[in-house]
């Protein structure tokens, strides 16, 4: 399984499935990370975590541990 965590800075990927459950999953999906959405990894924070993503026309920050739950193509 390939996850969002493995996507390199500057590259994009399409979401296949979001793993996990409950509040965590709901929060990620509420912010627009849903099946079929295209996500670009903009940059990594200076200390190596979290990530800055671009999706649905806006910027979102997400920890690597959470990015691991997002399966991509």
């Amino acid at each position, binding site marked *: 399984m390939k996850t969002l965590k493995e996507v390199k800075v500057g590259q994009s990927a399409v979401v296949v499935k*979001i793993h996990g*459950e*409950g*509040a*965590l*999953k*709901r*929060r*990620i*999906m*509420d*912010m*627009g990370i*849903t*099946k*079929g*959405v295209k996500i670009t990894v903009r*940059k*990594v*924070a*200076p*200390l*190596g*975590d*979290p990530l*800055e993503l671009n999706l*649905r*026309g*806006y*910027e*979102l*920050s*997400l*920890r690597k541990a*959470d990015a691991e739950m997002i399966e991509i193509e």
Partner: protein
Amino acid sequence: MEDKISIALAGNPNSGKTTLFNALTGSNQYVGNWPGVTVEKKEGALKNEESVTVTDLPGIYSLSPYTLEEVVARNYLIDERPSVILNIVDGTNIERNLYLTTQLIEIGIPVVVAINMMDIVRKNGDTIDVNGLSKRLGCKVVEISALKEDGIIEAAKVAIEVAKSAKKTVKHIFSGAVEHAIAHIEEITVHNLPEDMQRWYAIKIFERDEKVLAQLGIGEETLSHIEHDIVACEKEMDDDAESIITNERYEYIASILKGVYVKKNEGKLTLSDKIDQVVTNRILALPIFAIVMFLVYFISVTTVGTWATDWANDGLFGDGFHLLWIGDGEYNENAENYANSNTVINGFIEWSESGGENLDLLKDTINTENDYFDAENAKTALQTYLFSLPINAVASYTVVDEETLQESVETATLEDLKNAINALIGYDFTEPDPASYGVWVPGVPVLVGNGLEAINCADWLSSLILDGIVAGVGAVLGFVPQILVLFLILAFLEDCGYMARIAFVLDKIFRKFGLSGKSFIPMLIGTGCGVPGIMASRTIENDKDRKMAIITTTFIPCGAKLPFIALIAGAVFGGAWWVAPLAYFTGMAAIVVSGIILKKTKLFESEYTPFVMELPAYHMPTFKNLMHTTWERGWSFIKKAGTIILLSTVIIWFLTYFGFTDTGFRMLAEDEVDKSLLAVVGGFISWIFAPLGFGTWQGAVATITGLVAKENIVGTLGVVYGVSGSAIQAISSAFSPAAGLSFLIFNLLCAPCFAAMGAIKREMNNWKWTTFAIGYQTIFAYAIALIVYQFGLLFTGAVNVVGLIVAIILTVVLLYFIIRPKFGKKEAKN
């Protein structure tokens, strides 16, 4: 009579909701908190339309049951049923913003969508077909620019119209299988609810929303019946119900935006993107952060903030101040010169007396407080004294620093004495009067004092008014200027978008201690003053992180604790350099340890919430909005924290200035603290501090007066230990190093001053949490001070066996709390 119309303002964070709210209501607002929670609530009457109230809901992305803000917003909409929802949507970020809209429409309250930032949308060359969107959403859509106040009135008018017509259309937006299940749920569980609410409840039941299920109390049998439907649907769609709904909402949005919303430059970098490339750059981010934090501290604590506080405390609520600072420098120079000259002369006299000379006559002649004082006589006496000294005389004498009680030995030559005498003659033996320089505005206490004197007010009453009430009001208002300065800076950082970047940059470090990256700001400000530090915690969006910041911020030594630290360092540790760094280290360690301990308790137990944070586009905040936010927060401090500060000050005033003496119960002079009720109280409770090494009434009294303001500890110690001779020597012999350290640590960590407690109450908005915060701080301080004292005794060879055992037990308990597993973790594994 027609019903009163209420408009609920809903929208995502950073969508311009606050700006719109301010534009709609003007200055006509009431700011408070939602009942019992730390979430801010704003209400106001619509401009020029007093009968219409506007309620600003917290900024939210969704109506899920998982965050406090979302639950607050949702309960309001469901329970209070406002007449209309005005949903503000950021046009530059329309896809994600409409996600909330799809949920608002379901509630069954008429919705008007106001698309904000249309000017930027157009500037980017994008187009939004408002009429097309309105048809597809099934509700009115209007264009606005909250910042430029374009279309605001129109939006409000549309909302009122819609509210009156009460026409609402609920669209079925989900796929066949889901709609089928929802229809089924509607039919068997919620058909007895009002018709317009049925769909919302049905969808929530489908999502297995725990809060709704608990509220409705659906029977076991019905529940299993529905569960069958949901599971069938989940199987078909290969996902859980909640995710199915979320997914389909976004799919629905994509479908309705097709042809309605056209983006011109997909993927091109905007100005905001370019700024962000520099600000959160791998190499530059941390230096830029350091510079920004330095500026925040420099402005709000070191420079403007201190000027503002000094002006408020020493000027407005002190002796007075020079208008526009004209003549201030000149006056200070002269006042200092006058004081120094006196010091030199008195030093010389003291030195001569220590050599066996009797100079009582001289001292009497130059005492300006005597009724028979005569400047000519004083001049002659001083010159005679000067000529009686050998030409190479060098006097050495002790000088006591008033602020820290520190004693130092200074020397002066005959030349210095000559200059000093000439200076006094130049001043005609009268202290420079600030009123002779520039325009002098007397402080409130002076004016009130003069007024009371003029009407021959009784001593106790004038003291109550001056030392109790005016001082109490001063204690409240004295903080306001600095708070305003800080809030202005914070509002700027929040509005321009940098605050979110701080959390982004610092997240990795702070999450280790269970804190948010934004907790850095309260702590930084807390080194200056705990009150604005606590209030800065409101920029943290997670409720538990916010409470944690409120509880731990005052552990960092604030400016008022510095003289006290200096006193202990000087009196007990011979001016050792390491005492001040140790105080800061103790504060930081207390924050980290408390963070770890509290995060593991049931109170702070929370489901792991992901750090999913929007990084809003940078933009220049408007002056008007900044002022609005700043004033609003400052005012709420005065109102909410003011009462508690004022009341406590008056109580302590009474205890300090009254007592039983040989002549019965009466009011006391300032140096009679030992006879005061406070000393009696101190004596009563001093046993509590015995295990900490300072079980004396003096230690207890200093700790109590420290609650009014921490700098009072020094003043009180000066009075209670300075009855006969040098206070610093008395303190030095009263406190062993172990007791001194324990006394220092206890007073640094225990309950903060009343002003900070007021701020805690204001931010917690809940007595239970306020009590918990203050109780935790005090108990924590007590435990640490006890451990330090008892182990200190061990190292200095004066072991107290019982005390040591207690200290060891406390240490073990503390370590257990630090390393034990998280609350609830064990059960989760089973």
